[in-house]
Protein backbone atom coordinates (compact mmCIF):
# COMPACT_ATOMS: atom_id res chain seq x y z
CA UNK A 1 0.00 0.00 0.00
CA UNK A 2 1.61 3.26 -1.06
CA UNK A 3 1.26 6.48 0.91
CA UNK A 4 -1.66 7.72 -1.15
CA UNK A 5 -3.61 4.47 -0.61
CA UNK A 6 -2.75 4.67 3.09
CA UNK A 7 -4.18 8.17 3.22
CA UNK A 8 -7.42 6.97 1.59
CA UNK A 9 -7.63 4.10 4.11
CA UNK A 10 -6.95 6.42 7.06
CA UNK A 11 -9.45 9.06 5.92
CA UNK A 12 -12.06 6.32 5.36
CA UNK A 13 -11.66 5.16 8.95
CA UNK A 14 -11.79 8.71 10.31
CA UNK A 15 -14.94 9.50 8.28
CA UNK A 16 -16.51 6.27 9.56
CA UNK A 17 -15.69 7.21 13.17
CA UNK A 18 -17.01 10.74 12.65
CA UNK A 19 -20.23 9.38 11.15
CA UNK A 20 -20.61 7.05 14.12
CA UNK A 21 -20.28 9.96 16.58
CA UNK A 22 -22.87 11.99 14.68
CA UNK A 23 -25.20 9.00 14.09
CA UNK A 24 -25.47 8.24 17.81
CA UNK A 25 -25.36 11.90 18.94
CA UNK A 26 -27.93 11.18 21.61
CA UNK A 27 -25.35 8.92 23.29
CA UNK A 28 -22.19 10.83 22.40
CA UNK A 29 -23.01 14.55 22.52
CA UNK A 30 -26.09 15.11 24.64
CA UNK A 31 -25.17 13.33 27.93
CA UNK A 32 -21.91 15.23 28.55
CA UNK A 33 -23.62 18.52 27.72
CA UNK A 34 -26.37 17.80 30.28
CA UNK A 35 -23.96 16.51 32.93
CA UNK A 36 -21.67 19.51 32.61
CA UNK A 37 -24.60 21.92 32.72
CA UNK A 38 -25.61 20.32 36.03
CA UNK A 39 -22.02 20.63 37.33
CA UNK A 40 -22.02 24.33 36.46
CA UNK A 41 -25.41 24.90 38.07
CA UNK A 42 -24.73 22.93 41.27
CA UNK A 43 -21.01 23.31 41.93
CA UNK A 44 -20.49 26.60 40.15
CA UNK A 45 -23.62 28.61 40.66
CA UNK A 46 -25.19 27.24 43.87
CA UNK A 47 -22.28 25.93 45.97
CA UNK A 48 -19.58 28.01 44.27
CA UNK A 49 -20.99 31.30 45.56
CA UNK A 50 -20.41 30.15 49.13
CA UNK A 51 -16.88 28.94 48.35
CA UNK A 52 -15.75 32.30 47.06
CA UNK A 53 -12.40 32.57 45.25
CA UNK A 54 -9.92 29.83 44.34
CA UNK A 55 -6.38 30.86 43.34
CA UNK A 56 -7.66 34.41 42.80
CA UNK A 57 -10.54 33.45 40.46
CA UNK A 58 -14.21 33.02 41.30
CA UNK A 59 -15.02 29.36 41.74
CA UNK A 60 -17.02 29.05 38.51
CA UNK A 61 -14.08 30.36 36.48
CA UNK A 62 -11.71 28.06 38.33
CA UNK A 63 -13.67 24.84 37.67
CA UNK A 64 -14.64 25.64 34.05
CA UNK A 65 -11.26 24.53 32.54
CA UNK A 66 -11.27 21.42 34.73
CA UNK A 67 -14.79 20.46 33.64
CA UNK A 68 -13.91 21.02 29.98
CA UNK A 69 -10.88 18.75 30.43
CA UNK A 70 -12.96 16.18 32.34
CA UNK A 71 -15.36 15.92 29.39
CA UNK A 72 -12.49 15.71 26.88
CA UNK A 73 -10.84 12.89 28.88
CA UNK A 74 -13.96 10.78 29.38
CA UNK A 75 -15.24 11.25 25.82
CA UNK A 76 -11.99 10.58 23.98
CA UNK A 77 -11.54 7.44 26.09
CA UNK A 78 -15.18 6.40 25.81
CA UNK A 79 -15.35 6.84 22.05
CA UNK A 80 -12.43 4.55 21.26
CA UNK A 81 -13.25 1.90 23.84
CA UNK A 82 -16.87 1.59 22.70
CA UNK A 83 -16.17 1.86 18.98
CA UNK A 84 -13.29 -0.64 18.91
CA UNK A 85 -14.89 -3.08 21.32
CA UNK A 86 -18.19 -2.80 19.42
CA UNK A 87 -16.34 -3.68 16.21
CA UNK A 88 -14.73 -6.65 17.97
CA UNK A 89 -18.03 -7.79 19.44
CA UNK A 90 -19.91 -7.43 16.13
CA UNK A 91 -16.92 -8.92 14.28
CA UNK A 92 -16.89 -6.09 11.72
CA UNK A 93 -13.36 -5.39 12.92
CA UNK A 94 -12.55 -8.14 10.42
CA UNK A 95 -13.27 -5.62 7.65
CA UNK A 96 -10.11 -3.83 8.71
CA UNK A 97 -8.07 -6.88 9.65
CA UNK A 98 -8.42 -8.57 6.25
CA UNK A 99 -7.55 -5.36 4.40
CA UNK A 100 -3.98 -4.32 3.58
CA UNK A 101 -4.32 -1.30 5.90
CA UNK A 102 -1.26 -1.30 8.21
CA UNK A 103 -1.88 -1.72 11.94
CA UNK A 104 -0.60 1.73 12.81
CA UNK A 105 -3.31 3.25 10.61
CA UNK A 106 -6.00 1.20 12.34
CA UNK A 107 -4.69 2.62 15.61
CA UNK A 108 -4.36 6.21 14.37
CA UNK A 109 -7.82 6.15 12.77
CA UNK A 110 -9.44 5.15 16.05
CA UNK A 111 -7.36 7.65 18.02
CA UNK A 112 -8.44 10.37 15.57
CA UNK A 113 -12.06 9.37 16.23
CA UNK A 114 -11.48 9.71 19.97
CA UNK A 115 -9.84 13.11 19.55
CA UNK A 116 -12.69 14.33 17.33
CA UNK A 117 -15.30 13.37 19.92
CA UNK A 118 -13.19 14.78 22.76
CA UNK A 119 -12.83 18.12 20.97
CA UNK A 120 -16.47 18.12 19.88
CA UNK A 121 -17.74 17.61 23.43
CA UNK A 122 -15.05 19.92 24.85
CA UNK A 123 -16.30 22.67 22.53
CA UNK A 124 -19.91 22.11 23.61
CA UNK A 125 -18.96 22.20 27.30
CA UNK A 126 -17.03 25.42 26.64
CA UNK A 127 -20.16 26.96 25.13
CA UNK A 128 -22.17 25.77 28.16
CA UNK A 129 -19.52 27.28 30.48
CA UNK A 130 -19.84 30.64 28.72
CA UNK A 131 -23.48 30.80 29.83
CA UNK A 132 -22.28 30.76 33.45
CA UNK A 133 -18.95 32.59 33.46
CA UNK A 134 -16.48 34.55 31.34
CA UNK A 135 -13.33 32.86 30.08
CA UNK A 136 -10.47 34.95 28.68
CA UNK A 137 -8.00 32.54 27.17
CA UNK A 138 -4.50 33.54 28.24
CA UNK A 139 -2.43 31.17 26.10
CA UNK A 140 -4.39 29.83 23.10
CA UNK A 141 -1.59 27.55 21.88
CA UNK A 142 -1.26 25.90 25.29
CA UNK A 143 -5.04 25.44 25.43
CA UNK A 144 -5.16 23.86 21.99
CA UNK A 145 -2.08 21.68 22.40
CA UNK A 146 -2.95 20.35 25.87
CA UNK A 147 -6.53 19.52 24.91
CA UNK A 148 -5.46 17.66 21.74
CA UNK A 149 -2.54 15.84 23.41
CA UNK A 150 -4.67 14.84 26.40
CA UNK A 151 -7.38 13.54 24.07
CA UNK A 152 -4.70 11.46 22.30
CA UNK A 153 -3.49 10.01 25.63
CA UNK A 154 -6.97 8.88 26.64
CA UNK A 155 -7.97 7.72 23.18
CA UNK A 156 -4.92 5.41 23.32
CA UNK A 157 -5.97 4.30 26.80
CA UNK A 158 -9.45 3.50 25.51
CA UNK A 159 -7.95 1.50 22.67
CA UNK A 160 -5.89 -0.67 25.05
CA UNK A 161 -8.97 -1.21 27.23
CA UNK A 162 -10.97 -2.31 24.17
CA UNK A 163 -8.25 -4.75 23.05
CA UNK A 164 -8.33 -6.55 26.39
CA UNK A 165 -12.11 -6.32 26.92
CA UNK A 166 -13.99 -9.58 26.44
CA UNK A 167 -17.47 -8.40 27.43
CA UNK A 168 -19.29 -5.10 27.71
CA UNK A 169 -18.69 -4.95 31.48
CA UNK A 170 -14.96 -4.77 30.79
CA UNK A 171 -15.23 -1.46 28.99
CA UNK A 172 -16.79 0.31 31.97
CA UNK A 173 -14.43 -0.96 34.69
CA UNK A 174 -11.52 1.36 33.92
CA UNK A 175 -13.63 4.52 33.41
CA UNK A 176 -15.57 3.83 36.63
CA UNK A 177 -12.83 2.64 38.97
CA UNK A 178 -9.73 4.39 37.60
CA UNK A 179 -10.50 7.27 35.29
CA UNK A 180 -13.28 9.00 37.23
CA UNK A 181 -11.48 8.92 40.64
CA UNK A 182 -8.21 10.12 39.09
CA UNK A 183 -10.00 12.92 37.26
CA UNK A 184 -11.98 14.06 40.30
CA UNK A 185 -8.80 13.98 42.40
CA UNK A 186 -6.84 15.64 39.60
CA UNK A 187 -7.58 19.19 40.61
CA UNK A 188 -10.77 19.69 38.60
CA UNK A 189 -12.69 21.10 41.58
CA UNK A 190 -9.93 22.43 43.81
CA UNK A 191 -6.38 23.69 43.89
CA UNK A 192 -4.01 21.16 45.50
CA UNK A 193 -2.54 24.03 47.50
CA UNK A 194 -5.60 23.55 49.76
CA UNK A 195 -4.37 20.08 50.69
CA UNK A 196 -1.90 19.11 53.45
CA UNK A 197 1.69 18.48 52.29
CA UNK A 198 1.29 14.71 52.25
CA UNK A 199 -1.83 14.73 50.05
CA UNK A 200 -0.25 17.31 47.78
CA UNK A 201 2.60 14.86 47.20
CA UNK A 202 0.11 12.04 46.56
CA UNK A 203 -1.80 14.24 44.11
CA UNK A 204 1.39 14.91 42.19
CA UNK A 205 1.54 11.20 41.34
CA UNK A 206 -1.72 11.61 39.43
CA UNK A 207 -0.94 12.35 35.75
CA UNK A 208 -4.38 13.87 35.18
CA UNK A 209 -3.47 16.66 37.61
CA UNK A 210 -0.79 17.82 35.17
CA UNK A 211 -3.12 17.76 32.18
CA UNK A 212 -5.91 19.65 33.96
CA UNK A 213 -3.48 22.23 35.32
CA UNK A 214 -1.73 22.75 31.98
CA UNK A 215 -5.11 23.42 30.39
CA UNK A 216 -6.15 25.68 33.26
CA UNK A 217 -2.90 27.59 32.85
CA UNK A 218 -3.71 28.08 29.17
CA UNK A 219 -7.13 29.49 30.03
CA UNK A 220 -6.60 31.37 33.31
CA UNK A 221 -2.84 31.71 33.54
CA UNK A 222 -2.63 29.89 36.87
CA UNK A 223 -1.37 26.38 37.66
CA UNK A 224 -0.38 24.17 40.61
CA UNK A 225 2.44 22.55 38.64
CA UNK A 226 5.18 23.55 36.17
CA UNK A 227 3.83 23.52 32.59
CA UNK A 228 7.02 21.97 31.19
CA UNK A 229 6.56 18.96 33.49
CA UNK A 230 2.96 18.61 32.29
CA UNK A 231 4.04 18.50 28.63
CA UNK A 232 6.83 16.01 29.43
CA UNK A 233 4.37 13.70 31.20
CA UNK A 234 1.85 13.95 28.35
CA UNK A 235 4.46 13.17 25.68
CA UNK A 236 5.89 10.24 27.65
CA UNK A 237 2.36 8.87 28.17
CA UNK A 238 1.59 9.15 24.44
CA UNK A 239 4.88 7.43 23.54
CA UNK A 240 4.35 4.54 25.95
CA UNK A 241 0.66 4.01 25.20
CA UNK A 242 1.17 4.24 21.42
CA UNK A 243 4.03 1.72 21.51
CA UNK A 244 2.04 -0.69 23.68
CA UNK A 245 -1.11 -0.35 21.53
CA UNK A 246 0.83 -1.05 18.35
CA UNK A 247 2.52 -4.03 19.99
CA UNK A 248 -0.91 -5.46 20.90
CA UNK A 249 -2.17 -4.95 17.35
CA UNK A 250 0.93 -6.47 15.75
CA UNK A 251 0.71 -9.48 18.04
CA UNK A 252 -3.01 -9.77 17.35
CA UNK A 253 -3.75 -9.93 21.07
CA UNK A 254 -7.48 -9.84 21.68
CA UNK A 255 -8.34 -9.54 18.00
CA UNK A 256 -6.84 -12.49 16.10
CA UNK A 257 -7.11 -16.16 17.01
Amino acid at each position, binding site marked *: MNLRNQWYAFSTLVIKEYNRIVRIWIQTIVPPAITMTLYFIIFGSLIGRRIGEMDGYDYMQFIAPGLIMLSVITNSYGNVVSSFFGAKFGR*HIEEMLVSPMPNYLILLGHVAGGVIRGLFVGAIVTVVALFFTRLHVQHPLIVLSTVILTAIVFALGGFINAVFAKKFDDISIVPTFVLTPLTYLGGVFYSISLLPEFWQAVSRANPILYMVNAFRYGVLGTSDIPIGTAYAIIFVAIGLLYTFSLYLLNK*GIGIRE
Partner: protein
Amino acid sequence: MKALELKNLSKTYPNGVQALTGIDLSVEEGDFFALLGPNGAGKSTTIGIVTSLVTKTGGTATIFGHDIDRDFSAAKACIGLVPQELNLNQFEKVESIVATQGGYYGLPRGLALERAEKYLRELQLWDRRHDIARSLSGGMKRRLMIARALVHEPRLLILDEPTAGVDIEIRRSMWAFLRKVNAAGVTIILTTHYLEEAENLCRNVAIIDQGRIIENDRMSRVLRKLQMETFVLTLEHELDAAPRLDDYDTRLVDPLTLEADVHSGRDINELFRALSAAGIRVVAMRNKANRLEELFMRLVEQKKDGRAA
Protein backbone atom coordinates in the same frame (compact mmCIF):
# COMPACT_ATOMS: atom_id res chain seq x y z
CA MET B 1 0.51 -19.01 -11.71
CA LYS B 2 -0.63 -20.30 -8.36
CA ALA B 3 -3.33 -18.18 -6.77
CA LEU B 4 -2.77 -19.87 -3.42
CA GLU B 5 0.01 -22.11 -2.19
CA LEU B 6 0.13 -23.56 1.31
CA LYS B 7 3.17 -25.51 2.45
CA ASN B 8 3.24 -27.51 5.66
CA LEU B 9 0.68 -25.13 7.17
CA SER B 10 -0.08 -25.90 10.79
CA LYS B 11 -2.10 -24.38 13.59
CA THR B 12 -2.25 -25.38 17.23
CA TYR B 13 -4.56 -23.30 19.41
CA PRO B 14 -3.42 -22.23 22.89
CA ASN B 15 -5.73 -24.87 24.43
CA GLY B 16 -3.69 -27.56 22.64
CA VAL B 17 -6.18 -28.31 19.87
CA GLN B 18 -4.31 -29.06 16.67
CA ALA B 19 -6.54 -27.62 13.97
CA LEU B 20 -4.10 -28.10 11.07
CA THR B 21 -1.32 -30.68 10.98
CA GLY B 22 0.94 -29.41 8.22
CA ILE B 23 -1.23 -29.22 5.11
CA ASP B 24 -0.01 -28.67 1.54
CA LEU B 25 -2.42 -27.21 -0.94
CA SER B 26 -2.22 -25.25 -4.15
CA VAL B 27 -4.90 -23.56 -6.21
CA GLU B 28 -4.22 -22.45 -9.77
CA GLU B 29 -5.13 -18.99 -11.01
CA GLY B 30 -8.62 -18.90 -12.52
CA ASP B 31 -9.77 -22.07 -10.75
CA PHE B 32 -13.10 -22.57 -9.02
CA PHE B 33 -11.94 -24.67 -6.09
CA ALA B 34 -13.91 -26.44 -3.38
CA LEU B 35 -12.52 -26.96 0.11
CA LEU B 36 -14.75 -29.46 1.84
CA GLY B 37 -14.76 -31.10 5.22
CA PRO B 38 -16.96 -31.83 8.22
CA ASN B 39 -17.44 -29.31 11.02
CA GLY B 40 -14.20 -28.68 12.89
CA ALA B 41 -12.09 -30.22 10.10
CA GLY B 42 -9.91 -27.12 9.70
CA LYS B 43 -11.53 -25.34 6.73
CA SER B 44 -12.23 -22.06 8.50
CA THR B 45 -8.84 -22.16 10.24
CA THR B 46 -7.15 -22.50 6.84
CA ILE B 47 -9.14 -19.59 5.46
CA GLY B 48 -8.50 -17.61 8.66
CA ILE B 49 -4.74 -18.02 8.24
CA VAL B 50 -4.82 -17.06 4.57
CA THR B 51 -6.83 -13.92 5.36
CA SER B 52 -4.73 -13.14 8.47
CA LEU B 53 -7.61 -13.48 10.95
CA VAL B 54 -5.87 -16.48 12.50
CA THR B 55 -2.15 -16.66 13.26
CA LYS B 56 -0.44 -19.82 12.04
CA THR B 57 2.00 -21.80 14.13
CA GLY B 58 3.99 -23.23 11.22
CA GLY B 59 4.42 -23.39 7.45
CA THR B 60 4.02 -20.83 4.70
CA ALA B 61 1.18 -19.35 2.71
CA THR B 62 1.58 -17.37 -0.49
CA ILE B 63 -1.08 -15.53 -2.48
CA PHE B 64 -0.14 -14.97 -6.14
CA GLY B 65 3.48 -15.30 -5.07
CA HIS B 66 3.20 -12.87 -2.14
CA ASP B 67 4.14 -14.40 1.21
CA ILE B 68 1.52 -13.51 3.85
CA ASP B 69 4.27 -12.82 6.42
CA ARG B 70 6.86 -10.97 4.38
CA ASP B 71 4.60 -9.20 1.88
CA PHE B 72 1.34 -9.05 3.79
CA SER B 73 0.04 -5.86 2.22
CA ALA B 74 0.33 -7.14 -1.38
CA ALA B 75 -0.98 -10.57 -0.35
CA LYS B 76 -4.05 -9.10 1.39
CA ALA B 77 -4.78 -6.76 -1.52
CA CYS B 78 -5.31 -9.85 -3.73
CA ILE B 79 -7.97 -11.40 -1.49
CA GLY B 80 -11.67 -10.80 -1.03
CA LEU B 81 -13.31 -12.69 1.84
CA VAL B 82 -16.91 -13.68 2.40
CA PRO B 83 -16.80 -15.12 5.91
CA GLN B 84 -18.95 -17.89 7.29
CA GLU B 85 -20.45 -15.79 10.08
CA LEU B 86 -22.19 -12.50 9.47
CA ASN B 87 -19.75 -9.76 10.37
CA LEU B 88 -21.56 -6.67 9.17
CA ASN B 89 -21.94 -3.54 11.23
CA GLN B 90 -25.67 -3.97 11.75
CA PHE B 91 -26.27 -0.24 12.18
CA GLU B 92 -24.37 0.94 9.12
CA LYS B 93 -26.04 1.62 5.78
CA VAL B 94 -25.61 -0.87 2.96
CA GLU B 95 -23.83 1.49 0.57
CA SER B 96 -21.56 2.79 3.32
CA ILE B 97 -20.50 -0.75 4.31
CA VAL B 98 -19.32 -1.54 0.79
CA ALA B 99 -17.71 1.85 0.10
CA THR B 100 -15.93 1.85 3.48
CA GLN B 101 -14.43 -1.55 2.75
CA GLY B 102 -13.16 -0.14 -0.55
CA GLY B 103 -11.56 2.70 1.38
CA TYR B 104 -9.75 0.24 3.67
CA TYR B 105 -8.20 -1.25 0.54
CA GLY B 106 -6.92 2.19 -0.47
CA LEU B 107 -9.60 3.20 -2.97
CA PRO B 108 -10.40 6.92 -3.17
CA ARG B 109 -13.92 7.71 -1.92
CA GLY B 110 -15.35 8.43 -5.39
CA LEU B 111 -14.10 5.15 -6.85
CA ALA B 112 -15.23 3.19 -3.78
CA LEU B 113 -18.76 4.62 -4.17
CA GLU B 114 -18.73 3.85 -7.91
CA ARG B 115 -17.72 0.23 -7.24
CA ALA B 116 -20.26 -0.05 -4.43
CA GLU B 117 -23.00 0.95 -6.88
CA LYS B 118 -21.73 -1.53 -9.48
CA TYR B 119 -21.72 -4.54 -7.15
CA LEU B 120 -24.86 -3.61 -5.24
CA ARG B 121 -26.71 -3.38 -8.55
CA GLU B 122 -25.30 -6.73 -9.70
CA LEU B 123 -26.40 -8.36 -6.47
CA GLN B 124 -29.84 -6.70 -6.51
CA LEU B 125 -29.21 -4.61 -3.41
CA TRP B 126 -29.03 -1.13 -4.90
CA ASP B 127 -32.64 -0.32 -3.94
CA ARG B 128 -31.72 -1.06 -0.31
CA ARG B 129 -28.54 1.06 -0.28
CA HIS B 130 -29.87 3.56 2.27
CA ASP B 131 -31.11 0.87 4.68
CA ILE B 132 -29.09 -0.33 7.63
CA ALA B 133 -27.72 -3.87 7.43
CA ARG B 134 -29.90 -5.04 10.30
CA SER B 135 -33.04 -4.48 8.25
CA LEU B 136 -31.95 -6.88 5.49
CA SER B 137 -33.04 -10.50 5.18
CA GLY B 138 -30.51 -13.31 5.69
CA GLY B 139 -30.05 -13.79 1.95
CA MET B 140 -29.55 -10.07 1.40
CA LYS B 141 -26.91 -9.94 4.13
CA ARG B 142 -25.04 -12.79 2.41
CA ARG B 143 -25.18 -10.92 -0.90
CA LEU B 144 -24.05 -7.74 0.82
CA MET B 145 -20.98 -9.58 2.13
CA ILE B 146 -20.21 -10.72 -1.43
CA ALA B 147 -20.49 -7.14 -2.72
CA ARG B 148 -18.23 -5.98 0.11
CA ALA B 149 -15.66 -8.66 -0.74
CA LEU B 150 -15.60 -7.65 -4.40
CA VAL B 151 -15.41 -3.86 -4.04
CA HIS B 152 -11.60 -3.78 -4.41
CA GLU B 153 -11.83 -6.28 -7.31
CA PRO B 154 -9.69 -9.04 -5.78
CA ARG B 155 -7.90 -11.70 -7.85
CA LEU B 156 -8.83 -14.37 -5.30
CA LEU B 157 -12.32 -14.57 -3.81
CA ILE B 158 -12.71 -16.83 -0.78
CA LEU B 159 -16.25 -17.80 0.21
CA ASP B 160 -16.72 -19.62 3.49
CA GLU B 161 -20.18 -21.19 3.27
CA PRO B 162 -21.69 -18.26 1.38
CA THR B 163 -25.12 -19.79 0.86
CA ALA B 164 -25.73 -21.08 4.40
CA GLY B 165 -29.36 -20.45 5.31
CA VAL B 166 -30.23 -19.06 1.90
CA ASP B 167 -33.29 -20.33 0.01
CA ILE B 168 -32.77 -22.32 -3.17
CA GLU B 169 -33.84 -19.54 -5.54
CA ILE B 170 -31.37 -17.05 -4.13
CA ARG B 171 -28.72 -19.78 -3.88
CA ARG B 172 -29.05 -20.50 -7.58
CA SER B 173 -28.87 -16.81 -8.48
CA MET B 174 -25.72 -16.57 -6.34
CA TRP B 175 -24.25 -19.53 -8.20
CA ALA B 176 -24.91 -17.79 -11.52
CA PHE B 177 -23.26 -14.65 -10.20
CA LEU B 178 -20.21 -16.52 -8.91
CA ARG B 179 -19.82 -18.33 -12.24
CA LYS B 180 -19.79 -14.92 -13.93
CA VAL B 181 -17.16 -13.62 -11.49
CA ASN B 182 -15.02 -16.72 -12.09
CA ALA B 183 -15.44 -16.40 -15.87
CA ALA B 184 -14.11 -12.85 -15.57
CA GLY B 185 -10.83 -14.33 -14.29
CA VAL B 186 -11.27 -14.26 -10.52
CA THR B 187 -10.02 -17.38 -8.77
CA ILE B 188 -12.64 -18.66 -6.33
CA ILE B 189 -12.18 -20.90 -3.30
CA LEU B 190 -15.44 -22.14 -1.82
CA THR B 191 -16.23 -24.02 1.32
CA THR B 192 -19.77 -25.29 1.64
CA HIS B 193 -21.92 -27.80 3.38
CA TYR B 194 -24.10 -28.05 0.28
CA LEU B 195 -22.02 -30.55 -1.61
CA GLU B 196 -24.34 -30.21 -4.57
CA GLU B 197 -23.08 -26.62 -4.70
CA ALA B 198 -19.44 -27.72 -4.88
CA GLU B 199 -20.26 -30.36 -7.51
CA ASN B 200 -22.11 -27.80 -9.61
CA LEU B 201 -19.60 -24.98 -9.40
CA CYS B 202 -16.11 -26.30 -8.78
CA ARG B 203 -13.51 -27.83 -11.10
CA ASN B 204 -11.12 -28.97 -8.36
CA VAL B 205 -11.69 -30.12 -4.83
CA ALA B 206 -9.77 -30.77 -1.63
CA ILE B 207 -11.31 -32.64 1.27
CA ILE B 208 -9.96 -31.83 4.69
CA ASP B 209 -10.59 -33.87 7.82
CA GLN B 210 -9.09 -33.49 11.30
CA GLY B 211 -6.58 -30.95 10.05
CA ARG B 212 -5.31 -33.08 7.14
CA ILE B 213 -6.00 -33.05 3.40
CA ILE B 214 -7.42 -36.50 2.62
CA GLU B 215 -8.29 -35.90 -1.03
CA ASN B 216 -7.16 -33.31 -3.57
CA ASP B 217 -7.96 -33.78 -7.23
CA ARG B 218 -10.14 -32.69 -10.14
CA MET B 219 -13.83 -32.86 -9.25
CA SER B 220 -14.53 -35.25 -12.15
CA ARG B 221 -11.74 -37.65 -11.06
CA VAL B 222 -12.87 -37.51 -7.44
CA LEU B 223 -16.44 -38.37 -8.46
CA ARG B 224 -15.14 -41.26 -10.57
CA LYS B 225 -13.80 -42.81 -7.38
CA LEU B 226 -17.35 -43.50 -6.30
CA GLN B 227 -17.76 -47.25 -5.95
CA MET B 228 -21.52 -47.27 -6.14
CA GLU B 229 -24.45 -44.98 -6.74
CA THR B 230 -28.05 -45.50 -5.75
CA PHE B 231 -30.77 -44.38 -8.15
CA VAL B 232 -34.39 -43.81 -7.23
CA LEU B 233 -36.72 -44.87 -10.05
CA THR B 234 -40.34 -43.81 -10.39
CA LEU B 235 -42.36 -46.61 -12.01
CA GLU B 236 -45.28 -46.42 -14.44
CA HIS B 237 -47.15 -49.33 -12.81
CA GLU B 238 -47.28 -50.49 -9.21
CA LEU B 239 -45.21 -53.50 -8.09
CA ASP B 240 -45.83 -55.93 -5.24
CA ALA B 241 -42.16 -56.78 -4.71
CA ALA B 242 -38.74 -55.64 -5.89
CA PRO B 243 -37.62 -57.46 -9.05
CA ARG B 244 -34.59 -59.81 -8.84
CA LEU B 245 -32.02 -58.51 -11.32
CA ASP B 246 -28.55 -59.97 -11.98
CA ASP B 247 -25.76 -57.53 -10.90
CA TYR B 248 -28.14 -54.99 -9.37
CA ASP B 249 -29.53 -54.85 -5.86
CA THR B 250 -33.03 -53.40 -5.80
CA ARG B 251 -35.45 -52.40 -3.05
CA LEU B 252 -39.08 -51.37 -3.29
CA VAL B 253 -39.65 -48.19 -1.30
CA ASP B 254 -43.36 -48.06 -2.16
CA PRO B 255 -45.37 -49.71 -4.96
CA LEU B 256 -44.33 -46.99 -7.45
CA THR B 257 -40.75 -46.29 -6.22
CA LEU B 258 -37.79 -48.58 -6.70
CA GLU B 259 -34.21 -48.10 -5.53
CA ALA B 260 -31.38 -49.69 -7.52
CA ASP B 261 -27.66 -49.83 -6.58
CA VAL B 262 -25.33 -49.42 -9.58
CA HIS B 263 -21.70 -50.34 -8.92
CA SER B 264 -18.91 -48.51 -10.72
CA GLY B 265 -18.06 -50.16 -14.02
CA ARG B 266 -21.64 -51.22 -14.58
CA ASP B 267 -23.53 -49.69 -17.46
CA ILE B 268 -26.70 -47.90 -16.42
CA ASN B 269 -28.25 -48.84 -19.80
CA GLU B 270 -27.99 -52.49 -18.75
CA LEU B 271 -30.11 -51.69 -15.70
CA PHE B 272 -32.84 -50.28 -17.95
CA ARG B 273 -32.57 -53.26 -20.31
CA ALA B 274 -32.97 -55.61 -17.32
CA LEU B 275 -35.96 -53.63 -16.04
CA SER B 276 -37.58 -53.62 -19.49
CA ALA B 277 -37.03 -57.37 -19.78
CA ALA B 278 -38.86 -57.75 -16.46
CA GLY B 279 -41.74 -55.70 -17.86
CA ILE B 280 -41.04 -52.67 -15.68
CA ARG B 281 -41.29 -49.20 -17.22
CA VAL B 282 -39.49 -46.27 -15.59
CA VAL B 283 -40.97 -42.78 -15.95
CA ALA B 284 -38.43 -40.80 -13.89
CA MET B 285 -35.06 -41.25 -12.20
CA ARG B 286 -32.87 -39.35 -9.72
CA ASN B 287 -29.79 -39.92 -7.56
CA LYS B 288 -30.73 -40.99 -4.05
CA ALA B 289 -27.92 -38.96 -2.51
CA ASN B 290 -25.70 -36.28 -3.87
CA ARG B 291 -22.75 -38.12 -5.43
CA LEU B 292 -20.12 -35.96 -3.84
CA GLU B 293 -21.83 -36.22 -0.48
CA GLU B 294 -21.72 -40.00 -0.75
CA LEU B 295 -18.03 -39.99 -1.61
CA PHE B 296 -17.27 -37.43 1.03
CA MET B 297 -18.88 -39.51 3.76
CA ARG B 298 -17.10 -42.62 2.55
CA LEU B 299 -13.68 -40.94 2.53
CA VAL B 300 -14.16 -39.53 6.00
CA GLU B 301 -15.37 -42.90 7.29
CA GLN B 302 -12.44 -44.73 5.64
CA LYS B 303 -9.95 -42.42 7.33
CA LYS B 304 -11.63 -42.93 10.67
CA ASP B 305 -11.52 -46.72 10.20
CA GLY B 306 -7.88 -46.50 9.16
CA ARG B 307 -6.99 -44.57 12.27
CA ALA B 308 -8.99 -46.92 14.49
CA ALA B 309 -7.14 -49.91 12.97
